[in-house]
């Protein structure tokens, strides 16, 4: 920015702990800023007024506000069209370092230097949506017309948005319409409830804002949030073509992987591609939509896996789905001879064999069993119901339903290992080991009901056939659930503008599906609204910056297009990256990936961060004050470090903190910069990675880990100690571990001695 005003807060005890005049000298004498003011509490209303009048009078275009953490008062220090840089003097300086100490003062001054340097280098031009030549469409596409999809469509329509609802079956309603009864979701949670979906289907059908395609699927979805084009096709032969459905590809991949020892090969998602432009049939319907809710739900797991329990072998061994159908159609009768059923054994927590539980087994299935046992008893007062389980889960209020069901004297519960079902004397015999009865038992029964798990259809179907460079399917975890930081960001997928809801997120009952449908709709609405304002969606909601590609220097290495966790960047035929502005989450992982350093944000680029590194005053080796650079992820690690301050925990004052958009946006050149500038150690702190990752951008901390391993190798080659670089992952609750981590690293660095490049 051209003209910067520096505001130093002396409140919160900052004035007492630090030499404010010396701090002011840094701004005025070192950086020659035209304006530098100090006072207590710049967040006060009159103080903010003063800043505003300064902006007008002095013509400031950038502010550096030194005081509280950037995580607080964000709304107060926000001025239209003005770049604001916050320097953390409270949480990360005076709250965790001794007052009046020389090292504390040096830290505060360095923080101010970094802030001013960054503000000077940053540019502030909202590139977007001015550069966007098309209008952002706010229509919400809902895929799947079950209870989740219907709720989502209705919710979006109620909020005033146009909706396109696509359902593959001839009628709306999905599984919810096929149920005989629901287990209770209203107080007192003890009695069965009737299906109530009909009125909801009618409401959706009669809503002018909702356009419905039944018996149809998405042939292809191309574009980006606000600019999606959905090609919708009536069902037909096309849906079985292997190129359109991941299913075939996955089957082929599994078949070829069979017998191979290398399991990684097996886990790799199959590469799929959306149909090409010219393949789109003329009779496909085209709809322009802004965001999509993916609510394609589930299918029951395959009972043939359970042959030892008679699954697919005996007529009277049925799935819970068949049971539900039978109940809906009237009396519960034995499939083999049509006789009335007087006893049913319900099998829960199923496993293919001792080692392999069926992974889609869930509390929903357990609750369905309780429900089915109840209506069996209602329909036939003499019937006996046996419920055999490994775990019987009735979460929350459902405990009340379980308790009520338990009271029925003809419903029998036992934990146990069911190891066989056999036909005997015109009926079935269920064999159970380790039952709660303290012995191995056999139960004679008329019928066996297998509690089959709910498999998300996204496990083996691409559903949307996305025209994305990375894959036609929405990325899923290994169980087939689309996810993007499951714990913190429900509904989100790794494809911006596409939100998952209902049973493709986890096994759910209809009440949870309703909640989920609404939740995902709100996310979709948020997306189209923020997109139309040129802002990022969560986790950097409201961010107006955007990565710029300096294409002249691009070498078509494809690293950005491959590593973007959100598949935001497509490629042209020559492998040039084609950024899709509205797909971008602004994580900067492409920046960290680009070996040519051609990707940059206005306030976050090779140069901007580099200038911060250079701004830090590194004492020479004789002063015996080592310097450690802490590259810290803004999402969890930075708040955790602030919390260390809240708790007044002390840590080494040699550490200088540079926040990263994501650890994945960490560019290796910064490490080189830091070494060249005499830093003795580099500490990278990001989110948990792996299966239970907490990285807000899914792959960022993992990528950082890989990149750092490589740079460590380089350091070793240069005979520089690779211990000078450390990567640690923390969760937000780990604030109490951070001081120990940092102190221990500082000790290690002291042991290693000064960086040989130090001047």
């Amino acid at each position, binding site marked *: 920015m051209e003209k910067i005003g520096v505001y130093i807060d002396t409140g919160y005890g900052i004035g007492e702990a630090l030499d404010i005049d010396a701090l002011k000298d840094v701004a005025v004498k070192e950086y020659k800023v035209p304006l530098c003011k100090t006072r207590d509490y710049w967040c006060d209303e009159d103080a903010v007024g003063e800043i505003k009048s300064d902006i007008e009078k002095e013509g400031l275009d950038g502010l550096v506000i030194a005081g509280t953490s950037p995580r607080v008062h964000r709304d107060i220090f926000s001025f239209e069209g003005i770049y604001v840089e916050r320097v953390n003097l409270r949480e990360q300086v005076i709250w965790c370092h001794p007052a009046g100490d020389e090292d504390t003062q040096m830290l505060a001054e360095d923080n101010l230097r970094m802030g001013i340097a960054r503000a000077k280098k940053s540019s502030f031009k909202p590139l977007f949506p001015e550069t966007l030549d098309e209008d952002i469409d706010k229509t919400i596409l809902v895929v799947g017309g079950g209870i989740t999809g219907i709720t989502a469509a209705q919710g979006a329509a109620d909020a005033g948005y146009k909706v396109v609802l696509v359902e593959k079956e001839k009628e709306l309603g999905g599984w919810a319409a096929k149920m005989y009864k629901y287990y209770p979701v209203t107080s007192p949670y003890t009695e069965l409830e009737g299906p109530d979906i009909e009125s909801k289907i009618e409401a959706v059908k009669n809503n002018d804002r909702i356009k419905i395609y039944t018996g149809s699927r998405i042939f292809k979805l191309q574009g980006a949030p606000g600019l999606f084009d959905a090609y919708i096709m009536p069902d037909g032969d096309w849906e079985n073509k292997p190129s359109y459905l991941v299913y075939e590809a996955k089957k082929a991949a599994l078949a070829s992987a069979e017998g191979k020892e290398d399991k990684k090969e097996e886990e790799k998602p199959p590469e799929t591609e959306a149909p090409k432009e010219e393949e789109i049939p003329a009779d496909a319907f085209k709809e322009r939509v802004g965001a999509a809710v993916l609510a394609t739900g589930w299918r029951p797991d395959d009972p043939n896996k359970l042959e030892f329990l008679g699954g697919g072998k005996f007529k009277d061994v049925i799935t819970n789905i068949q049971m539900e159908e039978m109940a809906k159609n009237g009396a519960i009768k034995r499939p083999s001879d049509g006789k009335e059923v007087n006893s049913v054994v319900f099998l829960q927590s199923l496993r293919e064999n001792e080692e392999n539980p069926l992974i889609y087994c869930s509390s929903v299935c357990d609750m369905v069993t309780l429900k089915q046992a109840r209506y069996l008893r209602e329909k036939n007062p003499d019937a*006996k119901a046996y419920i055999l389980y490994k775990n019987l889960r009735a979460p929350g209020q459902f405990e009340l339903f379980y*308790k009520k069901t*338990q*009271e*029925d*004297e*003809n419903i*029998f*519960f*036992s*934990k146990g290992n069911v190891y066989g079902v056999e036909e005997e004397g015109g009926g079935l015999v269920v*064999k159970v080991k380790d039952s*709660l*009865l*303290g*012995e*191995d*038992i*056999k*139960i*004679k029964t008329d019928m066996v009901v297998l509690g089959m798990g709910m498999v998300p259809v996204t496990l083996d179907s691409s559903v949307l056939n996305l025209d994305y460079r990375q894959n036609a399917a929405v990325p899923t975890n290994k169980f087939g659930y689309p996810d993007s930081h499951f714990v913190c960001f429900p509904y989100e997928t790794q494809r911006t503008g596409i939100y998952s809801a209902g049973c493709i997120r986890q096994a759910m009952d209809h009440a949870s599906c309703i909640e989920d449908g609404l939740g995902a709709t709100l996310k979709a609405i948020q997306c189209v609204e923020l997109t139309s304002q040129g802002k990022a969606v969560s986790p950097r909601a409201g961010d107006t910056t955007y990565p710029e590609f300096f294409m002249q220097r691009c070498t078509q290495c494809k690293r950005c297009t491959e590593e973007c966790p959100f598949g935001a960047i497509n490629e042209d035929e020559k492998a040039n990256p084609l950024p899709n502005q509205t797909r971008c989450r602004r994580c900067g992982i492409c920046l960290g990936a680009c070996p040519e350093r051609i990707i940059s944000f206005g306030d976050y680029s090779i140069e901007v961060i580099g200038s911060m590194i250079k701004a830090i005053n590194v004492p020479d080796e004789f002063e015996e004050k080592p310097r450690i650079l802490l590259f810290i992820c803004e999402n969890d690690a930075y708040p955790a470090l602030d919390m260390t301050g809240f708790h007044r925990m002390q840590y080494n004052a040699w550490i200088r903190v540079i926040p990263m958009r994501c650890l994945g946006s960490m560019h290796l050149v910064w490490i080189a910069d830091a070494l060249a500038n005499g830093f003795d150690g580099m500490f990278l702190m990001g989110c948990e990675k792996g299966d239970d990752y907490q990285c807000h951008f899914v792959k960022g901390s993992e990528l950082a880990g890989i990149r750092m391993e490589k740079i460590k190798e380089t350091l070793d080659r240069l005979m520089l100690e690779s211990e000078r670089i450390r990567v640690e992952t923390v969760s937000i609750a780990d604030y109490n571990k951070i001081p120990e981590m940092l102190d221990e690293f500082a000790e290690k660095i002291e042991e290693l001695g000064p960086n040989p490049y130090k001047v």
Partner: protein
Amino acid sequence: MKQENYIEPDSKFIKNIINRGGGTLKKCFQCATCSVMCKLSPDYKPFPRKEMIWSQWGLKDRLIQDPDVWLCHQCNDCSVNCPRGAAPGDVLDAVRRSIIEYFSLPKFLGKMVGEPKFLPVILTIPVLLVLLLISLSSQNGHGFNIDLNGEILFRNFILYNCIDIAAVILTLFIVICYGTGLFRFWKELNKNPLPPGATGVGIVSGVIKTVVELLTHNKFKECEANSLRYWAHLFIWYGFLLLFVATTIVFLGIQLTHLKHDLNLMPPWGIISPIKIFGNLGAIALLVGLILVIYNRLTNEENAGKATYFDWSFIILLLVVTITGILTEIIRMASLALLAYIMYTLHLVFVFALLLYMPYSKFAHFLYRFLALVHAKVSGRSI
């Protein structure tokens, strides 16, 4: 080798337990807190967890053969600590009652004693019996040969012979009916396979150990939630024992006197005679015990367990027997002749009721438990 057993829940038996005070049994979810809390439960296959699921599943055969049901003294530590309100103490009580009913002979008496609606019939039988005795006594020329102004002599009102003959017949009835039930019960108990590594004792030693246990009530003492019951049951037990001994001696005395007239061991005895002191002490102990039981049941319902008709009918019958007995004695000594004879008649009615229904009422638990305890000691289940 573990054997697999076909399981066939008996719905009727489950209903039976539920109707007999075990209405909470279905609430059990097998966490085994009860077995952990129970001080009397052995380490190997502890109760009452397994009894709870057997009851839930209506596995009658297993419960009937199970000596553990009788190792429980219903102190209710389990019920008080049950996180689900399944009250294993109450359920075991109901199971014991169902077992007593199962072994009762004749069956209909077992059923009638347990149900309030048959109370009039149940009471009529001893009334008729006493009336029969009175009329028999009078037909003999001696009956109603009472002098309302003279010494009160019950033997003139109802001949001792009559009572004794009735008592003998009653005893035979009890021995046959109760004995058959007990014999079948013993057979069922012995179908139980011995636990591995059982270190049981011989049968004689088992009986002796059980008697010692009865005399000391040491198992009762371990109870926490319902500790008052130790004292209550101890008083009742010793009161009963004293009265039983006293009555037997009096009976023998009468018989001896009949044989050798010069012995003159005929009642009434003087108030300071040892036999009288014995009896009166017994009566007081019984009364104190009963008052404690009733007080505990009324004020400490949560810990004392659910009191059913089966419990109350026995407590009240015992109380009425005790009170009428004491009153008869007091009124007799106060020389209120008419009142004394009436009270004596009432006392006899209730005493007969007590004895007649011994194999079917809660009274029956005495020997069932005794056998189960002996079995437990012989099989090493409880030492």
